[in-house]
């Protein structure tokens, strides 16, 4: 298969405003659950705390697909992993198996729920609502050739065992630019 969608996150631009989280919740009317979440972490390479917006990464080998006893997950030709929660029995397997903890239980429906990359918006030619609402353009989506995906995997290993197996569809810019301070009068 040729081009597949991936999320693209620029660490340098993310200011942890959480607009993406809120926009998603508002668009889908979610309460008590976040499909997208801004996380904070510090690494040996980066001195500063890094903000990182994360949701389902629409992995190339999604573990949720194989773990769901109802076979509710499927991966579209454009790479988006979609959950059909109609038959969900809330067994929580996907919730615990996903290395990124993407599927969560929606308290309203009491069924598994996860980011679907706003698939209905993409089909109409729009970007996902989280991407549209990102004020600093830190979050974006792009299409990459699935054959070249390996080289575009996250530069920063998350040290989560399954991560290298699932091959998440996310491209990140990790090098934090050194801050330049301009002194101004007044």
């Amino acid at each position, binding site marked *: 298969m040729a081009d597949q969608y991936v999320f693209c996150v620029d660490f340098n631009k993310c200011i942890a405003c959480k607009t993406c989280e809120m926009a998603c919740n508002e668009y889908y009317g979610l309460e008590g659950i976040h499909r997208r979440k801004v996380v904070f972490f510090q690494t040996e390479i980066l001195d500063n705390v890094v903000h990182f917006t994360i949701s389902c990464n629409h992995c190339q080998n999604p573990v949720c697909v194989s773990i769901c006893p109802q076979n509710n997950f499927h991966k579209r030709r454009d790479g988006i992993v979609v959950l059909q929660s109609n038959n969900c029995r809330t067994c929580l397997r996907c919730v615990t198996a996903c290395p990124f903890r993407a599927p969560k239980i929606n308290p309203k429906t009491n069924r598994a729920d996860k980011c679907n990359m706003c698939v209905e918006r993409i089909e109409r030619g729009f970007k996902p609502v989280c991407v549209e609402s990102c004020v600093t353009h830190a979050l974006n989506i792009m299409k990459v050739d699935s054959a070249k995906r390996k080289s575009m995997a996250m530069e920063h290993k998350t040290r*989560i065992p399954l991560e290298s197996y699932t091959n998440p569809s996310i491209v990140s810019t990790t090098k934090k630019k050194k801050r330049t301070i301009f002194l101004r009068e007044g």
Partner: protein
Amino acid sequence: MKNSFQEILLHIPLHHLTFMTPLPKNPVYYTRIKHEWPQDWLKSPSLLVFEKYEEFEKLHRKEFVLKIIQDSHLMGIVLCSQRKFSCSEEIGAIFRQCGIPLVHIHDSSYLPLLEHTHQSLYPYSQISEELNGMVDKGFTYYARELSRALETPGLYLDQYCRLLWQTGTEQEIKEAEGWLRKYYTDLKNGKDVKAIPGPFEPYIMNIAGLSKQFLIASADLADWQKRMLHKLTGLTSLLLQTEEIFRVQQERFKEHFIYDLLYHKFESETMMIKQGKAWGWNLEKPHHLLCIHIELADGEEQELSPEVLLSDIESEGESMGETLHPFLFQEQLIVLIEDEEERAKGERERFAAKIAEKIHRKISGRLPGAVCKIGIGKWYPQSIHLNKSYQEARLALKFGSIWFREKQICHIENFGVLSLLVHIHKDILYDFSQKYLSPLLESDRENGTEYVHTLDVYFQHQGKMNDVSEALFIHVNTLRNRLRKIEELTGMDLQDKEQTMNLYFAVRIYFFIHSIQ
């Protein structure tokens, strides 16, 4: 300017022509067309054209042929009928010796062309019909006909300059092959064909600008003869391009189908089964799924053709009486094995493993230097769950190569308790391995000892001292001392089953975490 007989023939679709004798190299001109056999000598250069089959049959009489052939104004004979006609070798030889062309046109609608002795336009819409005729009769028929008509050999080379097909007399082919041997490198390296000297000449078939194939023919040809060959190569290019487009489309459809099958993207099971039938796969029956990863040795890459491997696997299945569907997907070989027999669980696993072993042997035989590993997913009674089986086979492949390095075939069902590790958070796993291995790791780091590696090999060989010492290239006594030291450092007794089990998992987890980072 009047057109020669040969020029006119260029305007008739090749599949409507049969050249019963070679066409003379020099242009043949005529001023009249006669539709009956002459009773007397012809008064001007004439072409005899017949549409009635009984008229053709006169050509079987040798005396009759010998009489008409002496007429110096007889320029050629055209027989027009849909019915096949052939004359004896002897009659053919007489016409050949006298240089009088004998041509059979299969469609009478082209006869008016013979009347138009002035320049006539080629109707380009005819290309479609010519192409259709070529699809029906094939390139080899055309090439053989033209080779006979133009008295030139024809050697067909594919894009890799491999000789696929040849036509002509034995002597001609021999000479052409000699020439080809001499200039093979020039052709392969894409040297300008005009710079390659005779007595043969390559005609290029440029297929959609993507690849080039060649037809080697004699260089000593008249202009109209070359145009006829150009027509042949042009039509062949179009045909191959059409076939290529069709093949690419088919491949794309199949690729989409496979993707949907392995990522569960069908509206319903019925739809999946229906689409599967289009590719000859009976998805009503359950299947095992094998995921094969091949790491090639240096130099093998160029010689490897995936199609060869796929057909090898398919024929292996046929020899076993099993239906296998091998295909390529995301740089790996996937094999579906049809299995609807009533079997016990263990027996079913052994069945899949047995076929995997045969496939492994076949691949290893074909690629002796390559490393081939096979992962097998769970068997599900419905093919709609093949997507799960695919992910499991990939897991078996990935983690099998970490935990069971010596094993070439790993079944997800054989992972046992280890399969739980993939779902446990890394920090918990890390803490567990550190709890048991930290003194050994410290010693390895500071003193260069290889305690963790020793333990890993020890567990892989089920604690058989001789095997372990052989694998580590050390003496058994050295191994005993090393193990004693390990027991001292960890405080564990390797003779105690429970303690050994904990150490075993600690080592497995340690290598699991480190291999995937």
